[in-house]
């Protein structure tokens, strides 16, 4: 009898949370997969028994189910449809550029631009990690002024990303406070008004809170290092770079790992900054990313099937990175 209650009690406690998790996370994931194989505009419904809504009598009600048309992998084909053509165009551009010709950047499909932007995010966004480390090393002192300054450095994290986006937009305005710099550089559209520079401008804005986040993680990691160890290293003759590389950084690996996971996943998830600053523009998709493009396709272009496809592609992309991280974590866990 006792053994039974020991087994069932934890299960009972877990059940509500598990139900929520399945309903709100697992089910929609599979739902997205399912929808991605269909074509649906989000407005057409039918009765669950197969009748169309127009067949209903006046006061009759039936359970409504989306009216989706099965299209198989058509949505996925649509995603990669223009990719070969775009690769060729980029190849031509590069070869002409390398041979010294003056060429304009070719016109590419939105899908290609979106994927390229995601790649830019994955590569550039994690630069917030070493910058955050630099700040953490600098702020890891015990003077009173430093302690007050620490809270100021933490501020960007407290601000809403939308607010940060707006403020950066203000500074990116070619007629705004920095107009003289933009005039000098010849950037008449500012930063996010230019289709080639927009993504970089948004990434820079997103760095602002992310650097603060990484800094906090590293500050916590630094306090875990025994001060006597640093003194022992000083006595051993380690200074500056060798001290950092051989004593401090190896012990910061857990912090670095957390920062990497959060930052890389964050790079793929980035939505609010892009939406607030450029709505994916200027033009079609020059600063767009998968997460925001999916949002637009689904809710504004009413193309739920294609939106779900984009969601699935983003999911699979994230899965690659998450798998790498989990494998790393499991390996670390078995070492200790």
């Amino acid at each position, binding site marked *: 009898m006792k053994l039974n209650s020991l087994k069932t009690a934890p299960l009972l406690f877990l059940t509500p949370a598990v139900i929520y998790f399945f309903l709100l996370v697992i089910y929609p994931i599979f739902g997205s997969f399912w929808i991605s194989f269909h074509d649906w505009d989000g407005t057409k419904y039918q009765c669950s028994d197969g009748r169309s809504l127009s067949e209903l009598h006046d006061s009759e009600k039936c359970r409504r189910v989306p009216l989706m048309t099965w299209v198989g992998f058509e949505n996925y084909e649509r995603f990669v449809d223009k990719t070969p053509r775009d690769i060729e165009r980029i190849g031509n551009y590069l070869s002409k550029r390398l041979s010294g010709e003056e060429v304009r950047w070719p016109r590419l499909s939105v899908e290609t631009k979106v994927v390229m932007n995601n790649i830019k995010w994955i590569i550039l966004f994690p630069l917030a990690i070493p910058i955050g480390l630099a700040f953490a090393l600098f702020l890891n002192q015990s003077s009173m002024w430093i302690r007050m300054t620490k809270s100021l450095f933490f501020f960007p994290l407290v601000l809403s990303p939308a607010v940060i986006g707006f403020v950066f937009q203000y500074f990116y305005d070619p007629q705004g406070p920095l107009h003289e710099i933009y005039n000098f550089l010849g950037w008449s559209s500012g930063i996010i008004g230019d289709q080639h520079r927009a993504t970089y401008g948004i990434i820079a804005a997103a760095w602002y809170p992310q650097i603060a986040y990484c800094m906090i993680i590293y500050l916590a990691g630094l306090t875990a290092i025994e001060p006597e160890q640093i003194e022992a290293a000083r006595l051993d003759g*380690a200074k500056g770079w060798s001290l950092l590389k051989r004593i401090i950084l190896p012990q910061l690996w857990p912090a670095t790992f957390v920062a990497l996971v959060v930052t890389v996943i964050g790079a793929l998830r980035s939505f609010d900054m892009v939406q607030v600053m450029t709505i994916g523009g200027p033009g079609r998709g020059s600063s767009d990313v998968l997460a925001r493009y999916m949002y637009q396709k689904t809710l504004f272009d009413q193309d739920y099937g294609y939106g779900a496809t984009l969601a699935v592609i983003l999911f699979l992309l994230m899965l690659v990175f998450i798998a790498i991280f989990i494998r790393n974590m499991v390996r670390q866990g078995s070492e200790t």
Partner: protein
Amino acid sequence: MATVKLKNITKNFGSVEVIRNANIDIKDSEFVALVGPSGCGKSTILRMIAGLEDVTSGEIEIGGNVVNAVAPSERQVAMVFQSYALYPHMTVRQNMSFGLEVTNHPKEKIRKKVDKAAEILQLQNLLERKPKQLSGGQRQRVAIGRAIVREPGVFLFDEPLSNLDAELRVQMRLELALLHQELNVTMIYVTHDQIEAMTLANKIVVINGGHVEQVGPPMVLYNNPANEFVAGFIGSPRINLLSTELVVAAGWIQSSNPSAARFGVRPEHLERSQTGLEGRVYHVEHLGGQTITHIKLASGEVIVLSEPGSGKDERGAIVRLAPAPGCLHAFDSAGMAVKE
């Protein structure tokens, strides 16, 4: 030449004066213990010698050179920390090689020095382990090994045995004493345990409240303490301090030097006598080969008696005590020793 001299050293932390005008002279190959209660400044002095703390005023000389402005790694000193401060992500061998690697010594030489140090400390089988796989005593030996490998002129120890259990402490004390004999290098050893100081040191520096109370060989401090503090700090159980009136009334002395305000006699220097100070036993501690008896006097003061063997006193027994000849120390009203 690894002599160490502290000349008029003063140390302030902000507005708080922590070390007051310390003068200490340490000769080559000496084992010097810095002892004192917690917070007296002994660790601060050690860290100033190492270069981990700045000196507010005064000079520190190592090997005849003033080193106030010299970086810690260039002072020819090596330090063993209380918490060992081993690098947790490195193996024992890497821990010991680190200092030499960072200062660009050739790999072969490093390997030889590490092997030699490992042999002295019996660490040969542990070289590929990481600190978390070692016991406390082993970690401490690695910390010592890390210091030996640098072949310093001065070894600095900051309460190295504090984190060990009692039995291991006794064993490591012996190993440290033998290590000093074998290496014959100057060693400066900070501890709050006067037993460690008495058993290991050639010379003891007693520090109280940032002030050097007395410097001398262990037995000199034991037999001729310069003041009440040193008398009370050295020797266990603690010395008994009694007022002049009590001592005269007990018949221990006829009349005293008028400047003598208090007298001290060590528990192990008290003998039972027919006449003398009378009191009632209120607690007995049996250590096996030694018995410590706590006695309450009529005046309410407490006196402690230490005798070899097993005592047979019961609580409430009446005891009469007198000091062994020449074992009574006189102190004036300021606590300084008075010559009889």
